[in-house]
């Protein structure tokens, strides 16, 4: 007899019910929304929600609802017209500390959201947007680092009165030549205790020569730091763009993925992301006429001519007090004493002692921040990369030195927005490593919509073709398989939604492919049952041995496909990964639905009939 215990039916129903529930949000579609998040990355609170509601109410653009979720605030609308106007209003009223962006919010009913059911996220190829792969130029980072040590090491030796004949940078190493072995040995000990991030060893090919290289941990730290710094800066810049759900993510040792859904103006995005900047604190040259210098072109010795942001000429001392790579932190806030907006800056040790020396003797003098932006243009000639730099220099801040300071100081006398901008620029200037775009993919919104429509059509048509084919070929059992196939599709969608996997076009292809392959298990079983019937078995025992004997083939076959899918996942990037995910999920769910699901139905239909004469197969 072919009977299933009750619990198996209940398990199946429970899985199916859960599948339906979690797949359901995908049916409801999306509605326009205005998204508000904090520039600082903090989560918005209920207070902000009330403020947003008040602003919108006052402007006569009351939203359908205002929801707080996962670090952002969404004001939902029915149409895109009001959405656009509301976004403009909020941008004006809330000011620069907030990121206001247009978004599409899933219109999932409250009761579904309560159980954590959300629709699948759509990939860039389906919703439109820009994908950048950026590479941090680590060579430059390490060049700068070794250049710095090639300056610091000899300075230290002079301070310690250790004689050396020559010190220079030699590729990825600092090379110091000594007049004698004694001097070298003395230096080796002293250097080892002073520069613990460098490893010193005697050069094999030259006498009395030390070679210092970065320790592996230090090299790794510098690498990570450069990448983290870039990540932070890129996040800030992406915020400037006002994108709803941006992704700025580390990939491997030196790369960063930036995804900007919905962004169409790639030129603007690239301009913002591709620029690198440095800054320098310098004293303003006092008592010199900058106007005259510009007019005549006669720049006094020891000074350089620059311009402020509003185009005024200004003369700066050549000497740099502190530079961007020595800047540890810069943030805007409110000065405790005066209560006015201020920018707080923190410097590293070397720059702090420099700053202390300079400010000690220059209280009352003006100090300027020179901002240098390097835009990198990469082009390719005969398969080789050629990079060109374009340099934009301007003075972004001039402030009077009010006292002696070193590691920490603040700049006051700025407007709120000014302080905010200056802090942002300072942080951007702290960016030590230039980045290059090595890959770009832009999908227009119409293409995204086309891709969704085409993907949906392919799934529906493929599905119908298989269903008709199965029903015609296997009749009754074909219908069982079709029920399992529908359940399989529901389960795949439910799992993808539950995992919050991103659905891409290749992902849809994976779903279509699994439909075709999911019936394989059933084909194996049904062909077995037919064989058993042909061999003269009774229908009941044919069902039983059909399922039993087919199992080993099904398991073997699916495991091998799974192996391919797992390798695909490990190797693939973005879209290809999506394909691997849907394929693997499809294989797993199809084994469940095709074996347990169809068996349950077959048992229900045929299992109780003692004198079963024939099967509809």
């Amino acid at each position, binding site marked *: 007899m072919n009977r299933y215990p009750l619990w198996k039916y209940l398990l199946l129903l429970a899985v199916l019910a859960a599948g339906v529930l979690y797949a359901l949000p995908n049916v409801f579609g999306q509605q326009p929304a205005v998204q508000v998040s904090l520039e600082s990355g903090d989560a918005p609170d209920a207070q902000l929600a009330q403020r947003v509601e008040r602003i919108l109410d006052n402007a006569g653009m009351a939203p359908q609802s205002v929801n707080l979720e996962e670090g952002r605030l969404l004001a939902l609308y029915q149409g895109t017209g009001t959405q656009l106007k509301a976004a403009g209003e909020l941008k004006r009223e809330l000011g620069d500390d907030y990121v206001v962006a247009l978004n599409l919010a899933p219109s999932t009913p409250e009761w579904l959201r309560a159980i954590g059911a959300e629709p699948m996220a759509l990939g860039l*190829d389906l919703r439109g947007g820009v994908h950048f*792969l950026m*590479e941090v130029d680590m060579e430059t980072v390490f060049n700068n680092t070794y250049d710095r040590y090639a300056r610091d090491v000899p300075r230290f030796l002079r301070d310690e009165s250790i004689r050396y004949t020559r010190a220079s940078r030699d590729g990825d190493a600092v090379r110091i030549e000594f007049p004698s072995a004694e001097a070298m040995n003395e230096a080796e000990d002293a250097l080892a205790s002073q520069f613990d991030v460098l490893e010193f060893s005697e050069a094999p090919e030259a006498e009395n020569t030390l070679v210092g290289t970065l320790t592996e941990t230090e090299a790794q730290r510098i690498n990570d730091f450069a990448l983290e710094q870039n990540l932070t800066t890129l996040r800030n810049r992406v915020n400037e763009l006002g994108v709803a759900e941006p992704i700025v993510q580390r990939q491997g040792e030196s790369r960063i993925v930036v995804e900007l859904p919905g962004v169409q103006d790639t030129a603007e995005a*690239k301009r913002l992301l*591709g620029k690198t900047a440095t800054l320098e604190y310098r004293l303003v040259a006092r008592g010199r006429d900058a106007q005259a210098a510009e007019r005549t072109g006669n720049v006094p010795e020891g000074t350089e001519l620059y311009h402020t942001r509003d185009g005024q000429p200004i003369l700066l001392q050549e000497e740099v007090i502190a530079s961007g790579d020595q800047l540890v932190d810069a943030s805007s806030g409110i000065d405790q004493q005066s209560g006015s907006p201020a920018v707080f800056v923190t410097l590293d040790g070397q720059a702090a002692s420099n700053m202390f020396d300079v400010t000690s003797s220059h209280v009352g003098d003006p100090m300027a921040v020179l901002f240098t932006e390097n835009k990198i*243009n990469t*082009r*390719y*000639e*005969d*398969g080789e990369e050629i990079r060109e730099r374009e340099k934009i220099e301007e003075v972004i801040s001039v402030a009077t030195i009010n006292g002696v300071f070193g590691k920490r100081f603040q700049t006051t006398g700025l407007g709120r927005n000014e302080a905010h901008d200056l802090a942002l620029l300072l942080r951007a200037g702290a960016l030590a490593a230039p980045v290059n*775009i*090595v*890959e*770009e*993919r*832009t*999908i*227009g919104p*119409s*293409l995204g919509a086309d891709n969704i429509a085409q*993907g949906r*059509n*392919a799934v529906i*048509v*493929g*599905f119908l*073709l*298989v269903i008709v*084919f*199965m029903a*015609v070929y*296997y009749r009754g059992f074909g219908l069982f398989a079709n029920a399992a196939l529908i359940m399989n599709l529901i389960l795949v969608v439910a799992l993808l939604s539950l995992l919050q996997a991103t659905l891409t076009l*290749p992902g*849809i*292809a994976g779903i*279509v*492919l699994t*439909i*075709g*392959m999911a019936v*394989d298990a059933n*084909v*194996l079983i049904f062909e077995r049952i*037919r064989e058993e019937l*042909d061999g003269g078995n009774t229908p009941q025992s044919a069902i039983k041995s059909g399922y039993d004997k087919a199992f080993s*083939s099904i398991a*073997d*076959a699916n495991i*091998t496909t799974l*192996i*391919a899918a797992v*390798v*695909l996942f490990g*190797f693939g*990037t973005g*879209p*290809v990964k999506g*394909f*691997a995910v849907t394929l693997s999920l499809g294989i797993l769910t199809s084994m469940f639905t095709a074996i347990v699901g169809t068996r349950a139905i077959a048992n229900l239909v045929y299992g109780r009939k003692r004198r079963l004469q024939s099967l509809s197969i």
Partner: protein
Amino acid sequence: MRLIKPDTSIDFVAYAKYALVLSALLIVVSIVSFSMEKLTFGIDFTGGVIVEVGYPEAVELQKVRDALAEGEFPDATVQHFGTSDSVMIRLAPEEGADSSDVSTRVMDALDVEDSAAELRRVEFVGPQVGDELVNKGGLALLYTVIAILIYVIVRFHWKLAAGAVAALVHDITITLGVFSLFHLDFDLTVLAALLAVLGYSLNDTIVVFDRIRENFRRMRKATPMEVVNASVNQTLARTLMTSGTTILTLLALFFLGGEVIHGFATALLIGIVIGTFSSIFVASVLALKLDVTSQDLFPPREEDAEKASRVTR
């Protein structure tokens, strides 16, 4: 309904001679085509720029080419993409053009001619990324084959594993050959499809192997050749059915899935047809040529040996 009659008994091993000749021929053609034409790698692998532009109505390619030539892109390849109102522009990376704003400048060049043009897609891949992908892609194929080889050796026997892997190499070579011969674009999605073909073709082969193992147990007096023939015949209906349903869905993808997924569907369609052929004629026949016997799958005195091996291992 049945496509294959229950008592079908085709002498596949006998036909395999002709099939192997055909396979050998296809492989030779593929390799020759390979070495002469190479593969038309998409920009995923070569690096370069693709710009897809949509027009409100059908557009003449010559007009687009002229507009681009007037700009700074005389070497751009321009072709229709799917429909006549959609145009795809390809630029090689060696062009000497500044990569980071090529798309902007392409649009500028086109706007001169027709301001209704709409940017649908831009893909820019730097050459170093492309090189990495070629390496990683090749490795992925290799790893998949090795992982599968190990699985089949453990589950079956090395002779069958050799047959299975030969069939896989056969499928991949011929599929790549078709891509090379017809100058079809080989991009990242096609590589993904190839990996899926590996999985699929093996799936087919394993089902046959499973039956061979079972039949060696049941048909004690039969020769290995008879066993292989019986196994291929018994699984024939299933092999054709599954290929059939998969091909149906792939046809849906091919015709309805849009241009972006076209290469993917093409590769899978070719791969599955070849894969079905190879699992019928190549995999088990090769194992047979390696003298696979009942003893390989079941050591002599089956039960005792099995028990003994459990104890000693």
